[in-house]
């Protein structure tokens, strides 16, 4: 335990110091309340033994300051009063002291207080550790809950949360964004021919290509079984389309054999839509438009990117 002794009376300080040495404790010792507060801020002591009345900062103020400003660890505060004045003791405990000692100091009383201090501070340390572990687990769980385990992309739950944030930004700052829905062509036929495990590998591969093409700030989601969704913040339809075309070409160029496709290789189709600044449509309107564009891309022969707003305009 790191102990801080604060007392302006050298006599009383010497007695406390001697008793602490005798008990084998390490301590730092200061002669007024101001020094005590400084020492505590840099040392974060486990136990503070402070005199009730000191220049600079009284023991009462010191206790209140320590309680107000130390967030993580817990310091056990022992106030030292001259003659067990009950009102002083109550006031001190209310201000944050855990215990008190009376002058003339009985070293055995000090020893008893330090036993309690050791127990309480170690309990607080355990609680703090447990809290930190829980917080770590919590953020890990949050991350897991937002991630598609197969592809490592964000999942639908993440999409819901992100879209709410995106809409708030768009409403407040008048930002624009592009949204694209990509779908693996004839995925069911691929699964039927090669089996579900091979189908899973294909989804992983498609995700890898999407990640390679996407830029920092773009968001990628596994939207459904073989459907992917990309959000390109701040991008026009033209630059969004450029990215999606690169994704489509990137997958076609992998030349993964697909006997069920007229292209002979695995391909994707995509529908793209944009929300320009000042528009009042919701994200689900934009998504619906991208979805309809995807549907047209499929009916236009697949391995194709179709644009929503072009048709609208």
């Amino acid at each position, binding site marked *: 335990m790191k102990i801080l002794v604060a007392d*302006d*009376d*050298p*006599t*009383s300080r*010497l*007695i406390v110091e*001697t*008793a602490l*040495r*005798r008990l084998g404790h390490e301590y730092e010792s200061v002669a007024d309340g101001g020094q005590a507060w400084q020492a505590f801020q840099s040392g974060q002591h486990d136990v503070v033994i402070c*005199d009730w*009345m000191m220049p600079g900062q009284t023991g009462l103020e010191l206790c209140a300051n320590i309680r107000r400003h130390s967030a993580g660890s817990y310091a056990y505060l022992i106030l030292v009063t*001259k*003659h067990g004045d009950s009102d002083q003791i109550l006031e001190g405990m209310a201000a944050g002291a855990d215990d008190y000692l009376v*002058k*003339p*100091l*009985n*070293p055995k009383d000090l020893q008893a207080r330090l036993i309690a201090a050791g127990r309480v501070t170690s309990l607080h340390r355990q609680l703090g550790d447990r809290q930190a572990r829980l917080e770590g687990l919590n953020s890990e769980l949050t991350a897991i809950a937002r991630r598609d385990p197969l592809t490592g992309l964000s999942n639908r739950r993440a999409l819901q949360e992100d879209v709410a944030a995106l809409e708030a930004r768009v409403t407040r700052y008048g930002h624009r964004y592009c949204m694209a829905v990509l779908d693996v062509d004839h995925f069911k036929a691929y699964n039927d021919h090669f089996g579900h495990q091979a189908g899973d590998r294909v989804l992983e591969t498609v995700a890898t290509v999407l990640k390679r093409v996407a830029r920092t700030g773009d968001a990628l989601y596994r939207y459904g079984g073989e459907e992917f969704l990309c959000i390109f913040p701040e991008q026009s339809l033209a630059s969004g389309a450029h990215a999606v075309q690169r994704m489509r070409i990137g997958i076609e160029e992998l030349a993964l054999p697909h006997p069920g496709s007229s292209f002979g290789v695995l391909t994707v189709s995509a529908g793209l839509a944009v929300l320009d600044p000042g528009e009042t449509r919701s994200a689900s309107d934009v998504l619906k438009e991208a979805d309809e564009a995807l549907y047209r891309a499929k009916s236009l022969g697949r391995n194709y990117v179709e644009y929503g707003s072009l048709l609208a305009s």
Partner: protein
Amino acid sequence: MPDGDRAVLDPEVIDRLVRLGDDAGEDLLAQLASLFLSDAGVRVAAMQAALARGDAAGIAWSAHQLSGASASVGAAELSRLAATFEAASVVDELSDGQVGLEAIEAELDRVRVALLVQTRPS
């Protein structure tokens, strides 16, 4: 109460300090005596100066310090006198200030002698 009826130094406190010193392997009482006596001298001088200029807060502060320090070395009567003086100065009843201070000085003399006796090498 007449002087002869009470110990200037509380034997229980002195005994505790001697034992603590023995346990720690230090001559604690001698160190304390010298610290206390030099400190108490400074406090009394400060009280005299404060009394001369009518500084009640200054008296209260020094009296409080002296009261705490004397309690620590077991000088219970001196501690009590200083505390009474402190209380009087807080409520600004220092008409008898000189008398109170003289009583403190007289008791401090007794404590000085008693401490010297206690710490005299045997």
